[in-house]
């Protein structure tokens, strides 16, 4: 379990700076360092176990369905990386303490840094592919945050996004690779994966998997062609560069290749890809390192180059190559971190990182000069420093590999060229900063930084020398288990400074000499390069992203053109297609039942319906005519219902139709009276074809159903209506009892419509023409006397009819809904005849509560049945005999129907009366002509600040 704490402690450590941030920087720094330090100690404490050949592992079940366990291991490789991550991390914390300005949010910085540290430890220790991926992506994220730390700088933001995009994309490829790998192996457990090398190599999906995994690794380790993001990541504060972009994060890709080495290396494909990419990266980046003018830029490209070197070694893949790779990881981390810190110190003290403005700093900053010289020499591979040993090993492996058959000389030659360039840029780095005179003066007068700020770099420099001098003593304890972890077996080796005179030594010598010469000539080279101005990767990247964004925008605009007509066309086309597919599967349209004979009335009815239906469409540009046609359709539809034995439907349709008419006319008043001719003939034709098609499909489907007999559940309703529901009108019993829940939903819909319309009408001010579309000024007679008189007779009659329809609904056609509509229409007649003000004065209550009360009553009927232990909406009924009056039947369903009645009355009046009220109080006596010409007249404009409420 202690193992679990090693990644967990740094993860918890993210909170420490957040909590201690307000207590001052020294305390915060100290507190932040504590948990990583403990984690480092715990890591080292595992050494004995490792020495004994154990691999400490811990696993907690997390998502077993996925094969995802929270599993960690601490083998040699993890140990090596943990030491690097935590060790250098601690040094960086110390360094950052001095590096950051007083004004900067150090707590946030530390939090990001620790988050990053924790995720790196997680990668190093992950014992499950998915866990590894999790931490992998977390490093991308934390590096995004760190690179963007100076978020006010444009290059920081761009660099952060670029890093995020590239490593994020790599991470996604890696995920796919991991899942494939898990699929091949049948487990995501690292141990199982590592032991299944043969299975993996034999699997046909291996190449794809390998490419995906390597994509991830290369993107993270900035290998060609994904190298471009790393230099731009240098926009980050220098501690970040030192830590992430030299010592740790960029090594994650290398780590991954080493980690999965037993599982996925060992094929020709592996060597080919990895070696080639590595060597190309190495040389290419080294070249750029030489010609960069920015201190951190040089270091960044040199980092890329060295990562290439390590990649080559992993590609070669022999045991000694692996050892060399791991050893170079260690060495590179030490000298490169120190170099970054030095460059940060210089930047900090001199105020610039531009080589042109730096020079002759040796006097002002002697200690820094020494440190930088040592570590620079290590980077160049000068003997006696650690870099020399691993580079020597690299040359050896480059010579010994036979990966490229006849071209086997290519590798050593390129390796040597890389070495030459490496020496050249290292020399340039040290010489230009400390010894040669500057071309322009630096912004600040440089001096040595505080001692403790130097200390981490000094320590690392000392390590460079110690390891360089006593490699076996200093590094074997780390290297042996690490190599064993990668090779899955112990490797006998001896790290030594001196291997005798041999070809690699000669190559080193060549590199040194040629490197110095190259540096001396480098101005000419740079002059040469300047003729081909290098393109800025960030600008290209931004351009590409911008271009993709624009392209995406254009595509989106093109696809989604905000045209309802197109959306509707698509919807209808989809329906046409699926309907036609169904229809096509019918063998015969006419079923066994066949057609009943047609009589003249039906024919005339159908003729009228078809005629007015089409008429509604044809006349749609003259809206009122269209509306009248529609009204006839409604009438005929209700006649159709009556004709085919559905009196309830006929009644409902009739009353709804009238209310709809009134509603549409109320609304039409505020809308244009005519529709402009806008559809092109082609468009109209297309719509016509589509609609005819869909109409045809609907007709066809209707016909197929109509000509077949159906066994349905309806017999149950016919049988149980009287005994079970206490009503003779089966339709009504279904509505209020068998399927009362539908009806409850339905009146809820109606009530919501009322509420929604109330919302829409609130503070709505609309243009009110003072003349009709022909220019006739409205008739002066608002409330025609005969109409008003008749309305007062019709209202009581309508109410009486409502009561009649309501009471008999359970046994005869009728019911609460129709009754409600009749009541509503009766009241609407009064509104029409006498106006809102007059009516409102006499009908002084809001309709919303009525509608809601109706829903409430219906719901209460439902709840009532709970009292009797029955399910919601269970009905009961009884016959009661009252003297003189006779038998009467009472059913709870009637109460439910009362709810329906109230809801309908309330909602309908809420809709119509509110709509009627929209204009009434504001109707201007006369429009002013300007407003009329503008086509819009508002009595008060809605406030622009969005305070308008709906």
């Amino acid at each position, binding site marked *: 379990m202690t193992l679990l704490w090693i990644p967990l402690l740094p993860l918890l450590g993210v909170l420490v700076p957040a909590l201690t941030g307000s207590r001052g920087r020294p305390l915060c720094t100290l507190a932040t360092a504590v948990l990583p330090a403990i984690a480092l100690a715990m890591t080292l404490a595992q050494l004995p176990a490792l020495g004994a050949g154990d691999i400490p592992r811990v696993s907690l079940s997390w998502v077993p369905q996925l094969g995802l366990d929270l599993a960690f291991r601490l083998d040699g490789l993890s140990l090596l990386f943990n030491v690097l991550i935590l060790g250098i991390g601690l040094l960086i914390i110390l360094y950052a303490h001095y590096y950051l300005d007083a004004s900067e949010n150090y707590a946030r910085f530390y939090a990001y840094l620790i988050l990053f540290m924790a995720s790196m430890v997680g990668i190093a220790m992950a014992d499950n592919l998915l866990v590894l991926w999790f931490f992998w992506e977390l490093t991308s994220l934390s590096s995004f945050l760190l690179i963007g730390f100076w978020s006010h700088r444009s290059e920081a933001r761009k660099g952060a996004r670029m890093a995020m995009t590239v490593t994020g994309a790599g991470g996604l490829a890696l995920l796919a690779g991991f899942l494939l790998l898990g699929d091949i192996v049948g487990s995501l457990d690292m141990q199982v994966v590592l032991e299944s090398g043969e299975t993996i190599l034999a699997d046909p999906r291996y190449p794809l998997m390998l490419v995906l995994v390597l994509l991830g690794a290369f993107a993270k380790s900035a290998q060609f062609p994904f190298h471009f993001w790393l230099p731009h990541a240098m926009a980050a504060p220098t501690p970040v560069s030192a830590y992430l972009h030299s010592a740790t994060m960029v090594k994650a890709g290398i780590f991954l290749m080493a980690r999965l080495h037993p599982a996925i290396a060992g094929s020709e494909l592996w060597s080919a890809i990895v070696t080639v990419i590595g060597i190309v990266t190495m040389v290419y980046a080294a070249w750029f390192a030489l010609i960069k003018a920015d201190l951190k830029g040089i270091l960044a490209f040199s980092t890329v180059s060295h990562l290439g070197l390590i990649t080559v070694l992993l590609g070669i893949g022999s045991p000694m190559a692996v050892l060399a790779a791991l050893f170079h990881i260690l060495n590179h981390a030490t000298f490169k971190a120190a170099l970054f810190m030095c460059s940060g110190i210089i930047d900090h003290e001199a105020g610039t990182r531009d080589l042109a403005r730096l020079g002759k700093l040796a006097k002002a900053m002697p200690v820094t000069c020494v440190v930088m010289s040592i570590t620079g020499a290590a980077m160049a591979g000068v003997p006696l420093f650690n870099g020399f040993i691993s580079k020597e090993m690299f040359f050896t492996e480059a010579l010994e590999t036979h990966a490229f058959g006849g071209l086997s000389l290519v590798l050593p030659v390129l390796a040597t060229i890389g070495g030459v360039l490496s020496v050249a840029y290292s020399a340039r780095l040290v010489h230009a900063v400390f010894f040669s005179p500057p071309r322009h003066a630096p912004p600040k007068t440089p001096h040595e930084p505080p001692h403790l700020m130097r200390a981490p770099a000094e320590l690392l420099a000392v390590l460079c020398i110690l390891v360089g001098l006593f490699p076996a003593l200093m590094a074997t304890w780390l290297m042996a288990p690490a190599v064993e972890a990668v090779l899955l077996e112990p490797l006998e080796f001896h790290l030594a400074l001196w291997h005798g005179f041999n070809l690699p030594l000669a190559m080193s010598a060549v590199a040194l000499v040629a490197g110095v010469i190259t540096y001396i000539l480098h101005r000419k080279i740079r002059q040469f390069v300047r003729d081909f101005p290098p393109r800025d990767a960030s600008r290209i990247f931004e351009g590409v992203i911008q271009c993709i964004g624009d392209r995406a925008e254009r595509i989106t605009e093109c696809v989604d053109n905000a045209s309802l007509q197109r959306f509707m066309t698509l919807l209808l086309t989809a329906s046409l297609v699926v309907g036609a597919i169904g229809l096509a599967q019918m063998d015969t349209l006419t079923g066994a039942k066949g057609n009943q004979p047609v009589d003249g009335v039906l024919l*005339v009815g159908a003729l009228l319906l078809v005629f007015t239906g089409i008429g509604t469409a044809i006349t749609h540009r003259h809206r009122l005519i269209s509306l009248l046609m529609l009204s006839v359709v409604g009438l005929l539809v209700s006649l159709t219902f009556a004709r085919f034995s559905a009196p309830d439907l006929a009644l409902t349709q009739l009353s709804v139709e009238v209310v709809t008419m009134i509603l549409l006319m109320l609304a039409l008043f505020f809308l244009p009276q005519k529709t402009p001719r806008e559809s092109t003939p082609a468009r109209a034709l297309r719509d016509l074809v589509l609609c005819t098609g869909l109409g045809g499909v609907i007709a066809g489907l209707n016909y197929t159903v109509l000509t077949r007999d159906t066994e349905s559940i309806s017999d149950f309703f016919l049988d149980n209506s009287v005994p079970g529901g206490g009503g003779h009108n089966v339709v009504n019993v279904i509505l209020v009892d068998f399927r009362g829940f539908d009806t409850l939903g339905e009146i809820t819909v109606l009530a919501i419509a009322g509420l929604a319309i109330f919302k829409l009408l609130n503070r709505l001010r609309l243009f009110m023409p003072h003349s009709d579309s022909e220019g006739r000024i409205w008739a002066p007679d608002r409330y025609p006397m005969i109409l008003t008189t008749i309305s007062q007779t019709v209202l009581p009659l309508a109410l009486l009819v409502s009561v009649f329809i309501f009471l008999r609904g359970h046994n005869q056609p009728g019911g609460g809904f129709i009754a409600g509509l009749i009541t509503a229409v009766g009241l609407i007649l009064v509104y029409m005849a006498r106006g809102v003000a007059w009516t409102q004065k006499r009908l002084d209550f809001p309709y919303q509560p009525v509608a809601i009360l109706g829903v409430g009553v219906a719901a209460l009927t439902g709840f009532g049945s709970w009292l009797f232990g029955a399910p919601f909406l269970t009905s009961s009924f009884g016959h009661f005999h009252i003297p003189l009056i006779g038998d009467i039947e009472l059913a709870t369903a009637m109460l439910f129907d009362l709810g329906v009645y109230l809801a309908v009355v309330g909602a309908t009046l809420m809709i119509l009366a509110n709509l009627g009220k929209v204009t009434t109080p504001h109707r201007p006596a006369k429009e002013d002509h300007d407003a009329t010409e503008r086509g819009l007249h508002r009595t008060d404009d809605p406030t622009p600040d969005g305070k308008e409420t709906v």
Partner: protein
Amino acid sequence: MLDTALTISLALVCLALLLNLFRLTVGPDMPDRILALDTMYVNSIALIILMGVWLNSKTYFEAALLIALLGFISTIAVCKYLLRGDIIE
């Protein structure tokens, strides 16, 4: 005899409906169309009553009643619309 009478009557009412449709379609003015609509309502009542007689069923009486009551309101609404624009003011 009754059947024949019923058929004749139905045929006449249907013809009447077609004539209404004619007036509804050709107009020429809105009031003409409304008049056609109104007449259609009334003729529908006739149709429903005749259907009731034909089927010997009183189930459809309410539908006729409702048309008599509501068709009028519909007509009034359109007239009011043409007269005043705002039918509830």
